[in-house]
């Protein structure tokens, strides 16, 4: 199992990013329903692991931080999901 993806918040972040080109920090926070600080800490871990990348942009003259899933993140996520499915299948 991928220890990094055992956290529900980090797993949710990757799942939010999977079908998107990018997602803004504010949108991730709204979708996942967690605090700024908590989400920021989880995102930092994912960035550090190379699972996601961070980009700063300006939208309507306001700063926006966007996140994008990396290839490594996508691979790790798919492997993790397969392992979760195997656990469920083994129990049935």
């Amino acid at each position, binding site marked *: *199992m991928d220890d990094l993806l*055992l956290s*529900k918040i980090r*797993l*949710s972040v990757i*799942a*939010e990013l*999977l*079908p*998107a*080109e*990018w*997602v*803004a920090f*504010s*949108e991730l926070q*709204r*979708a996942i329903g967690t605090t700024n600080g908590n989400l920021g800490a989880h995102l930092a871990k994912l960035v550090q692991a190379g699972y996601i990348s961070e980009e700063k942009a300006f*939208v*309507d003259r306001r700063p*926006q931080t966007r996140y994008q899933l990396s290839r490594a993140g996508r691979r790790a996520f798919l492997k993790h*999901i397969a392992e*979760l*499915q195997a*656990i*469920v299948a*083994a*129990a*049935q």
Partner: protein
Amino acid sequence: MESRQATEHLDIVSDILHRAEFGNPPAVQFIVWGIVGVAFNIAGQLVTLGKAGPQAFWVAGVVLALALVVSIWDMSRTQRAAGRLTTIGRLAAVSFWTAAAVMGTITILSEMTKLFPPFAPSVLFAAGMSTVLLTLGFGLRFRPLALGGLALLGSIVIAFLIPSWLGAIIAAGNVAGFIVPGVLFAVTKTDG
């Protein structure tokens, strides 16, 4: 990890993917490009019936140009408002723009060379757009897009059986394949 916990994690992922990918289809894109399809086909029908000259296609061309502007504006607005750019949104917009560029080129060439019959641009546009819908629909396993593509493709096939009403039938196909799903998407829009 226990099976119960694994199931819970899989459910979280499943819910997020379903909401994120299919929660907010690009409704305006569908409506706008449906209107373009209707404009070209009504133009083709009027020309075929002798109610208008080939200049009618230039009016449809203006509609196409306006659609391109609205489409780009909507994509930019949607991204800003949603704080995300979904893969389905990007693919739909880029596919529509590509089909529109090809359509515009063919219309201009058709007008300049008179090489194609009057209804050729509208048929080609419908064929291109149905290809876009079917590719996106089946590729992303998104049923409304696939059904829209099938409706439009079906209208092209029926139109060839009743050629005198080709434009009107394909215009109806555009309404069924683009405008109706677009309106439904807009009405049932979620916040996710």
